[in-house]
């Protein structure tokens, strides 16, 4: 039975809840960018086969290559994407350990969820403990007994914790013991095992803490320690240090001479120390800027396994010493730029010329000990803060990346969104990038601390347009990630937030201040010049008491919301004259909680959604609120379904109850206004979602992720239509956006370099929802024209939730006459023409169907008449190919039948002779129809079939009018078919009667040629 209208309902009990798997078939597109990649935090490779590489990233999970980096696959999508460290058990290299929670303790660093273990080379992972540690910096495996491991846990960045310290397992990770612990403020930063005497271990402890407005590195708990009994007893080993209070200490050991160690010990005067007696005595070594700079951020140093004097210090750049740290040179980077800010280095122990370097901008390889480098452009782990779009077709996406500037690219490109399509429009750290929708050449972007510029796409000029404080005003405070926000009501209006809010109507040439200081202006939170602890570090990352988020009501340009990083939520209803702080009205929200996003409803101007983030006081909860009375009263719309601190809340632009939340742990969707949330994970890792945009023409959901660049979920239409009747139905169609019949675009298929972000499908998307998985029987899709003729059959999936099948608008390919090789026209069906078609989904013995009306792309260059003519011409050639197939089959099928009869009458020599004579003549005749020279050589042989094929390809593959030559060719080929047909008939006339005469003797019925109808039936595909 078939249900028109597309919903097959059954009786219902309880309301069906959506789950993550409901959306499983609606996979997102990870479009990159990878041209600048992102922060790499950990690298390890298999010593015995260094083509197997594992790369850990700051926010984009773990990537594995088995090809020395030619191909990378992400292998950790289901888990925490912030990676602190990776260690391969080199004795059993299928065992991989991953410590989550990056330990380069910058402001934007994420938190981990424990230690993970894989025993199958990274395909599957299991949590192996330490799940409350938040940050794991290093895993040291006893080289002679893999069951013994030490794990350094600096621990939480924003609050006290008892989970810090040095951990040990003696049973391969089944149980863990904390073997060194100082206090709740001090964690273990580094751990080293003496490779020749693995009971000897060295550990550095580190006292550190961040607040939203400051960082403190160093304290009484910091220090350097040694144990010679596997961690039972410890001795402080700082003899030779200058006695000052210590911060982060980074360690290196010479694998070939392990009594030689090095330590960069942060203090008011950070030094590099060396020891040649296993730490009993230390001596100061060279202290170039790069060696000692930013010890909280650069915490790696390595000694060449083959050369005890050669040291590598990844820092802002890469410093190399050939004399055991007495002097350093900078790596030369011949042949190209290497991104600054180096966090990890791998040295191939069996070929120490071979290095892999992890930076803020991707992973590089050197094959000459650091003289020259190449970037792996295939790791799309860029760390986006925000995303915007424009209204071009295809629309462009704009984003700013952590330490990697500002960029834009088309959301769809010929062959895929490869690295070459990304355009850089601003440097430094990138955050907001706003296209000017009133001027397609203009893009606004910024670098850290509000350094806003106006970029011209035509000229590549960049103009600084930052507002400055006026005489008498206090110095402007701009957040690390300063808001540049476009007005939804006037494309010429933009906002810029410092502690004040600014507005421009003339591309930033004039800024109007439209608010007083909107922040708490707390003096204690404005001492960034003293931030950093032992090493002052005031990069702008700790700037505080600033406006962080701005939203103008889409319904009223005078209604503007502003949220601050120090927890004020302000609103004006008169364009900025009077501001009101409504933060105190929000129940259950801790004081001074960072306002991360405001979404002013487009359905009701009194309705607003706000997300808050309290993680910088150690509170990882998700805070999402809604007000429908302009902020007087608030309701929490956060549920226990949510995970991770919130960055963004967004209401859909067509369906008010459809909400999207981006948190540090992923993307969440609610279809009921926030009562229930589900984690979206279809080709979407648990990556931090920093921003959410919806392109109104394509209805694409565009996500800025902090570790996987931009991700697009194409077409929200089906999700908007997940109504209760649909969810409770056995099977229902879900609508999609209109997909035009395309013109066929050329894609040469030459390989690009690096990552290639996938395009959206250009096929017709058929979506159906099923309440339950189909356990017996199949799902089939049929597409018919209005006369009921079957155009195409497609197999369907049978999962619980939304199922997706695509149709490339092609009909069945023509039947082709047999030849010695396959003919390509037999694989290519012609496109259908504009019109209405019936799509039927058959599920077991039931089905649903709906009509789909297809249109040509309105931007097509060809008139409907030209289209129609092209279509008719294609079908004419299609028919010629099938006519030829029938012509050939008429004879060959007849002979096949005769041969079978002959086989069952083995004694009939006369029959055999007749058939042989007939066959020989037929073969000669058939060789005029299709290529007949056997073998795999490129014979260039062109018979009627091959000629029709070429013509068919040429005409069917271009959406406009065929050329006159093509039209003339049809006439010529038709004549060839006609001539062959006459010869075929002659052949039958002479040979068939002889054959039937011979058959009569065996009392077998006469043979005759198949009629066209019979042939159609027999060869029906």
């Amino acid at each position, binding site marked *: 039975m078939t249900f028109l209208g597309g919903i097959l309902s059954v009786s219902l009990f309880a309301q069906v809840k959506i789950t993550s798997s409901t959306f499983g078939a609606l*996979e997102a597109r990870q479009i990159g960018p990878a041209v600048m990649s992102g922060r790499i935090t950990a690298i390890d490779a298999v010593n015995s086969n260094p083509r197997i590489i594992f790369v850990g990233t700051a926010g984009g999970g773990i990537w594995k290559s*088995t090809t020395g980096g030619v191909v990378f696959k992400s292998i950790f999508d289901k888990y925490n994407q912030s990676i602190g460290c990776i260690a391969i058990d080199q004795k059993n290299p299928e065992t991989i350990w991953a410590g989550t929670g990056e330990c380069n303790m910058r402001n934007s660093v994420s938190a981990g969820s424990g230690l993970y273990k894989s025993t199958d080379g990274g395909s599957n992972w299991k949590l192996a403990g330490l799940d409350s540690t938040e940050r794991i910096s290093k895993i040291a495996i006893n080289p002679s007994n893999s069951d013994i491991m030490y794990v350094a846990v600096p621990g939480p960045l924003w609050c006290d914790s008892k989970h810090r310290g040095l951990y040990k397992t003696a049973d391969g990770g089944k149980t863990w013991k904390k073997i060194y612990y100082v206090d709740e403020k001090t964690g273990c930063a580094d751990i080293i095992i003496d490779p020749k005497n693995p009971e000897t271990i060295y550990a550095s402890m580190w006292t550190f803490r961040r607040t939203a407005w400051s960082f403190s590195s160093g304290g009484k708990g910091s220090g350097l320690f040694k144990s010679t009994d596997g961690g039972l007893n410890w001795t402080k080993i700082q003899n030779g240090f200058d006695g000052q209070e210590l911060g982060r200490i980074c360690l290196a050991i010479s694998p070939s001479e392990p009594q030689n160690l090095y330590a960069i010990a942060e203090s008011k005067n950070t030094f590099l120390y060396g020891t040649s007696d296993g730490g009993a005595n230390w001596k100061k070594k060279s202290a170039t800027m790069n060696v000692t700079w930013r010890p909280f951020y650069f915490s790696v140093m390595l000694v060449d396994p083959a050369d005890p004097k050669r040291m590598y210090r990844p820092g802002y750049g890469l410093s190399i010493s050939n004399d055991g740290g007495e002097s350093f040179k900078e790596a030369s980077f011949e042949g190209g730029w290497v991104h600054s800010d180096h966090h990890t280095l791998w040295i191939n122990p069996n070929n120490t010329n071979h290095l892999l370097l992890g930076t803020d901008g991707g992973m590089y390889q050197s094959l000459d000990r650091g003289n020259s480098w190449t970037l792996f452009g295939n790791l799309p782990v860029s760390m986006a803060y925000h995303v915007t779009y424009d209204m071009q077709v295809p629309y462009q996406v704009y984003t700013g990346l952590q330490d990697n500037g500002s960029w834009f690219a088309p959301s769809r490109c010929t062959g895929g969104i490869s690295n070459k399509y990304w355009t850089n429009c601003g440097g430094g750290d990138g955050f907001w990038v706003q296209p000017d929708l009133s001027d397609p050449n203009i893009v606004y972007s910024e670098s850290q601390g509000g350094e806003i510029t106006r970029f011209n796409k035509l000229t590549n000029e960049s103009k600084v347009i930052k507002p400055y404080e006026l005489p008498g005003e206090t110095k402007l405070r701009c957040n690390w990630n300063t808001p540049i926000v476009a007005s939804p009501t006037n494309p010429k209006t933009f906002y810029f937030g410092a502690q004040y809010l600014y507005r421009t109507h003339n591309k930033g040439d004039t800024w109007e201040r439209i608010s007083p200081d909107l922040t708490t202006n707390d003096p204690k939170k404005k001492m960034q010049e003293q931030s950093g602890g032992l090493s002052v570090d005031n990069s702008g990352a700790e700037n505080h008491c600033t406006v962080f988020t701005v939203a103008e009501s889409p319904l009223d340009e005078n209604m503007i919301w502003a949220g601050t990083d120090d927890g004020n939520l302000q609103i004006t209803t008169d364009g900025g004259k009077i501001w009101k702080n409504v933060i105190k009205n929000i129940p259950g929200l801790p004081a001074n909680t960072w306002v991360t996003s405001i979404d002013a409803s487009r359905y009701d101007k009194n309705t607003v959604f706000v997300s808050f983030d309290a993680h910088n006081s150690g509170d990882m909860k998700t805070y999402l609120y809604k007000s429908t009375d302009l902020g007087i009263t608030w309701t929490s719309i956060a549920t226990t379904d949510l995970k991770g601190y919130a960055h963004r809340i967004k209401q859909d632009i067509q369906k008010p109850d459809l909400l999207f939340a981006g948190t540090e742990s992923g993307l969440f969707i609610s279809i009921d206004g926030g009562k229930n949330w589900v984690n979206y994970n279809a080709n979407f890792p648990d990556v931090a979602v920093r921003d959410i945009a919806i392109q109104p023409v394509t209805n694409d959901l565009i996500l800025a992720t902090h570790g996987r660049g931009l991700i697009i979920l194409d077409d929200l239409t089906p999700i908007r239509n997940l109504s209760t009747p649909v969810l409770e139905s056995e099977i229902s169609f879900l609508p999609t956006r209109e997909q035009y019949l395309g013109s066929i675009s050329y894609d040469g298929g030459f390989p690009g370099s690096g990552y290639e972000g996938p395009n959206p499908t250009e096929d017709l998307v058929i979506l159906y929802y099923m309440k339950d998985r189909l*356990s017996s029987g199949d799902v089939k899709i049929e597409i018919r024209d209005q006369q009921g003729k079957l155009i195409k059959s497609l197999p369907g999936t049978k*999962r619980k939730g939304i199922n997706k099948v*695509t149709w490339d608008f092609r009909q069945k390919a023509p039947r082709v006459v*047999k030849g010695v090789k396959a003919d390509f026209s037999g694989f290519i069906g012609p496109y259908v023409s504009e019109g209405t078609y019936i799509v039927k989904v058959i599920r077991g013995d039931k089905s649903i169907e709906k009509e789909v009306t297809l249109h040509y792309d309105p931007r097509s260059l060809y008139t409907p008449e030209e289209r129609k003519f092209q279509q008719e011409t294609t079908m004419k050639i299609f028919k010629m190919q099938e006519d030829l197939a029938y012509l050939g089959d008429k004879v060959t099928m007849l002979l096949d*039948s005769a041969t079978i009869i002959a086989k069952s009458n083995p004694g009939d020599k006369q029959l055999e002779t007749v058939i042989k004579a007939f066959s020989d003549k037929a073969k000669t005749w058939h060789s005029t129809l299709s290529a007949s020279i056997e073998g795999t050589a490129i014979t260039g042989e062109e018979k009627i079939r091959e000629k029709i094929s070429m013509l068919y390809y040429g005409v069917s593959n271009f959406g406009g009018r065929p050329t006159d030559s093509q039209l003339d060719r049809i006439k010529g080929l038709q004549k060839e078919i006609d001539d062959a047909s006459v010869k075929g008939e002659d052949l039958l006339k002479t040979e068939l009667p002889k054959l039937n005469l011979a058959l009569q003797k065996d009392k077998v*019925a006469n043979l005759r040629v198949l009629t066209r109808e019979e042939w159609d039936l027999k060869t029906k595909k």
Partner: protein
Amino acid sequence: MIKFISFTLLILTATLAPAQTVTEIIDKHVKALGGKEKLNALKSLKMTGKVMAQGMEIPLILFLKAPNSMRTESSIQGMTMISAYDSKSKTGWYTNPMSGDKTAQKMNQEQTTDMEEIGDLLVGPLTNYKEKGATVELIGKEDMEGTEVFKLMMTKKNKNVVYYYLETSTFLILKESTKTKFEDKEIESDTYYSNFKTINGITLACTTEQKSGGQLEEQTTADKIEFDVPMEDSLFTLPPADTKDAKKDDTKDPKKDDTKDTKKPGGK
């Protein structure tokens, strides 16, 4: 590389004891396939069906003969492509007349990795795993496309790893993930099983699917399945090098030939 069909068990019981061991799960699975004895007594299987891929529908015949011989025939544009493995000589071979080459070519070592276990398609991959030197571990329960499954990890004698996802309510294998290592390459592939039917007391999946990006790339459906059809060994052996046309299973029935005139000879 060839996964046209798999055997799994039909619904036995919907209620499960809270914690089941690998052995219990596999026992229930095998029992419901038809039972170890019955499965191991199977001599052969012939499946007639089709492959739907890239918008095409390709007729397919699969021959399986115990212990580990296999042959598939698929036809495109009137040409028959054969892919076969002969367990006696441990030789895999294929023909690809579409390219103009009608001679049989030997499969390379990569293509024949795991072919010596092709008989799993007949008896089920978990039925005789111990005898084959494999080990199986229960990873746990997880969600597979909205359905609760047991995830089992099998480590084969050659160290290749296969994951099986068995529906917890039915013990059917719904999905199989393989990671095959050859030289330095790791080839991963997922196969989905559905459309289960019981034929002669043996339960099997009549549809197998390969997916990419959540969408079907290839679907193979069995229209007809026959057990213990006699099969000559020559079906599976590599044809001699000078043979132009590889052996064909000639199943054409002259009685059904529709080119025959229905009128009596000499009629009118």
